[in-house]
């Protein structure tokens, strides 16, 4: 294994080991997601069987996922700065390995959250999906975009004192295009329509955010 890959893997494994002990992100994401799921299902009932369901529910699903990840993912960097472990990490790992290791951790958390939330959501609102494959592709690609954008924004806000407020401000312009694309893709999956163009745009968004994040990160992370 190359030394760069070994560094990124070590950071990924360290973050999961620490998470397994303090359960901060898992608890935050899980509680937020379950609470909003219950609220949506109680408030709307079996809306999936109505004509409006296919238009409204994909949007609600991604709102739940967006806010749940926003509550938990920024901790990846904020905690390193707050507990002063960032100094040791800066002096021991290349910035690119830190970025990809943290991104892998955020991505695994996001995909785990989606694996929990999406089936529960579909069952609670009784929404049937005509193209399950496309639905899963949307979750995977949308989850990657969410994790990549959140990782970059978290690295920026960790250097500031107004972290949580700044996360909302910075994430708004970056995540809105992602949200629009992924909601459209999910609607197509529910209707059984093709979504080649939207999927290409979503993958382009994912690639752009990941590449821009990797290029920006050394300047954010180090003086």
């Amino acid at each position, binding site marked *: 294994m190359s030394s760069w890959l070994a560094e990124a893997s070590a950071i990924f494994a360290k973050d999961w080991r620490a998470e397994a002990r303090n359960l901060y992100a898992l608890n935050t994401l899980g509680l937020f997601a379950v609470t909003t799921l219950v609220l949506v299902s109680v408030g709307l009932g079996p809306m999936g069987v109505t004509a409006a369901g296919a238009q409204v529910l994909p949007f609600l699903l991604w709102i739940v996922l967006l806010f749940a990840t926003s509550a938990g993912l920024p901790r990846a960097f904020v905690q390193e700065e707050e507990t002063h472990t960032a100094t040791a990490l800066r002096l*021991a790992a290349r910035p690119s390995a830190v970025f990809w290791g943290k991104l892998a951790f955020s991505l695994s958390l996001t995909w785990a959250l989606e694996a929990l939330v999406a089936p529960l959501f579909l069952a609670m609102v009784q929404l049937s999906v005509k193209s399950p494959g496309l639905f899963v592709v949307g979750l995977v690609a949308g989850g990657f975009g969410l994790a990549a954008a959140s990782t970059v924004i978290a690295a920026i806000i960790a250097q500031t004192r107004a972290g949580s407020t700044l996360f909302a401000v910075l994430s708004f312009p970056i995540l809105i295009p992602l949200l629009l694309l992924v909601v459209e893709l999910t609607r197509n999956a529910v209707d059984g329509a093709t979504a080649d163009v939207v999927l290409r745009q979503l993958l382009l968004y994912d690639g752009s955010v990941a590449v821009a994040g990797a290029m920006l990160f050394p300047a954010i992370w180090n003086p």
Partner: protein
Amino acid sequence: MPATTAPLPVLHFRDVRRRFGRLSVLRGVSGRVASGEVLLVTGPNGSGKSTLLRCLAGLLAPDDGDIDYREAMPDAAPLSAAERRLRVGYVAPDLALYEELTAAENLLFFARLRGVPVELGAILLDRLSLPPDRAVGALSSGMRQKLRWAWALLHRPRLLLLDEPFQNLDGAGEAVVRELLEEHLADGLAVLAQPVDVEPSASWKVAEHVELAG
């Protein structure tokens, strides 16, 4: 009488300046330290000793000045700030390790990052009498300071930057740390320390002092 060659400088910094807003903390600081030497940085509280160490470690970018750090060998090229950052050892109060992980897990993690044999961590923990399986969050402040030393020496750095290095250590703890330090100095380590709590040992080859004005 055979000609003696002066040790090659490991670190040579010239006219380093750093401001924080309107406050000028470092106003043109210069110094040099060679392999096997100790350079003491003195000055009153607030004179910029810790800031200088952070600049030299690559954790803070100076506003002006030149920091030339190279391996102690002929024809070695100066290292960039990014390369310097990964090679220095650093002991300071603002450095913490992961509280959820044990002492051994922390050193294992950093050994993997630095690409050094993982056994080195266990050897250092044993030398410093640290409990390997206790979470860092449950260590005393003296034990945490010894763990900082283990972390700093894990990759056998050629330059060690010390900011209050004996803080919270009892007599036995300071003695074992000094013993480790002297072994590394004999092996060619260069040390730059701010001597709030550093009384130089008789065996140290102390280079010129750098005195910072308050």
